[in-house]
């Protein structure tokens, strides 16, 4: 053999392998989609939850908190905050009672001045997220 291996073969494996595994990825994505209705708590989605997600995004909550473990690691996990706090009222009370100038020397959550409707919506959104089947994650209630 003149050469142990050739560039042409390396190229073929690159193209073939990429297409192969991308198609496999699409097949698994398809499986995922068919499994989601039983897991993602979509029946709980309504206009309030949709507004809640908008409030969540418009205030960049993910910039400090994690949601199902994704986000920033500066403040507590909120995917299970509904379970940790026990009610939507407790969530609303916590958010609306943040002091405007923070707590001296400590990490503080800003006062976002949310309307009552927005407060309800964000709490309902977090309640909806807590209903997602996250394969028993997080390991402890503390997030």
């Amino acid at each position, binding site marked *: 053999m003149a050469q142990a291996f050739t560039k042409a073969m390396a190229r073929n*494996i690159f193209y073939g392998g990429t297409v192969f595994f991308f198609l496999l990825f699409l097949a*698994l994505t398809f499986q995922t989609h068919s499994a*989601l209705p039983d897991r993602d708590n979509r029946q709980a989605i309504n206009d309030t939850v949709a507004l809640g997600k908008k409030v969540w995004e418009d205030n960049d909550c993910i910039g400090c908190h994690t949601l199902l473990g994704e986000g920033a690691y500066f403040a507590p996990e909120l995917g299970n905050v509904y379970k940790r706090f026990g009610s939507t009222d407790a969530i609303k009370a916590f958010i609306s009672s943040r002091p405007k100038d923070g707590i001296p020397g400590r990490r503080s959550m*800003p006062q976002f001045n949310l309307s009552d409707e927005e407060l309800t919506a964000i709490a309902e959104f977090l309640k909806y997220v807590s209903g997602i089947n996250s394969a028993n*994650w997080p390991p402890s209630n503390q997030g």
Partner: protein
Amino acid sequence: MKYESQKVAKLYFTAAIGLFVGQILFGLILGAQYVIGDFLFPEIPFNVARMVHTNLLIVWLLFGFMGAAYYLVPEEAETELFAPWLAKLMFWIFLAAGAATVLGYLLVPYATLAEVTMNDLLPTMGREFLEQPTITKLGIVVVALAFLFNIGMTILKGRKTVVNLVLLMGLTGLAVFFLFSFYNPVNVVMDKYYWWWVVHLWVEGVWELILGSILAFILIKTTGVDREVIEKWLYIIIAMTLITGIIGTGHHYYWIGTPEFWQWWGSIFSAMEPIPFFMMTVYAFNMVNKRRRNHPNKAAVLWALGTAVMAFLGAGVWGFLHTLAPVNYYTHGTQITAAHGHMAFYGAYVMIVLSMISYSMPMMRGREACNSARAQSMEMWSFWLMTISIIFITLFLTGAGILQVYLQRFSDNPMPFMVVQEKIALFYWLREITGFVFLLGLVLYIASFFVGKNEPEATVELAK
């Protein structure tokens, strides 16, 4: 440098370094906020500083990639850039859009920014790393299209090398997968599922093609090893990258509501993701050992070898540490992830851009092949300062993460998040101090552009 139009890269690289400085300054602010909770509160809350930190990183790396492409593609294609004016125009548009976006983050509350940029028409904001206003995202698409057109036309009219083709594929993939940032359903699981098609398929997919091709270019230029050999290995490495990395996306689908078969598929394939990085390390060192000539730009070779090692450590080893589902169950969303993120981004992408700058900048600034020995020596000092700093930052964050996992999740009486944060504050202090050493390295790096300007170029003998 063979073609006049390659010089457009200088603009891009200059902007990249400038934004890099901004990124590090905001990183220091974030690090300070970790230990002095009310630092700059409420003027710059943590989430705003973090957006600036991460977005600047992404934008300056994109500037770096574009600059690298504008330098490398004409040289490989052996022809002038298709439209240098377009490259310059897009530079200013991108820079203006980036600056306006960062100023928007800093000057008005995020909710106001969302409102004035009419986020409600097509809500895409408020998701990690994709915080940019929708209009900025559209701007990125336009810039990317113009860039791809320019690069594509250059390749089309010139010599088609493997390095160019792989780079073009990587950049096209970057643009294509970015489109998923416009998909944002209310359903949180679907939102997260496709969010990873941007984030994971970028950094553990198509970006590695870009990384591979830039590294191959530098190796061809600095070692004089036969192009055929380097290109062959490039193909094998990127083949392994995508074979493992595409299904490897599954390691993000363990706990976000997606079905549990992902725990197996994700674990098995992502556990192999270090293989291409390991191959890249072996290959870079092999090529340098087999070099046919000693390139006088010692600093560039150091950066290139550093990339290969640090990418393997940061992306490969630190990724593997927490990629298996049973481990990730405890480490998901802790400082372990942050540790991995810092070393992987620095090792793979920051270093490859700095390698390219190190290789090409002297020539664009009128040198024959490299900077003076003094400038190179200073640059290499900055290499070691920044690299060792990032290693220690990673180690401190890993320490913080292990303790956090234990106290908050593993022990019999899990403690609340904020209590744990105070218990691990020592690690955050050490990280912040190391951050200043990193800044010092960055200052030296910039200074290296200004020292020894009037001294002669380093020669091979001197560089030995």
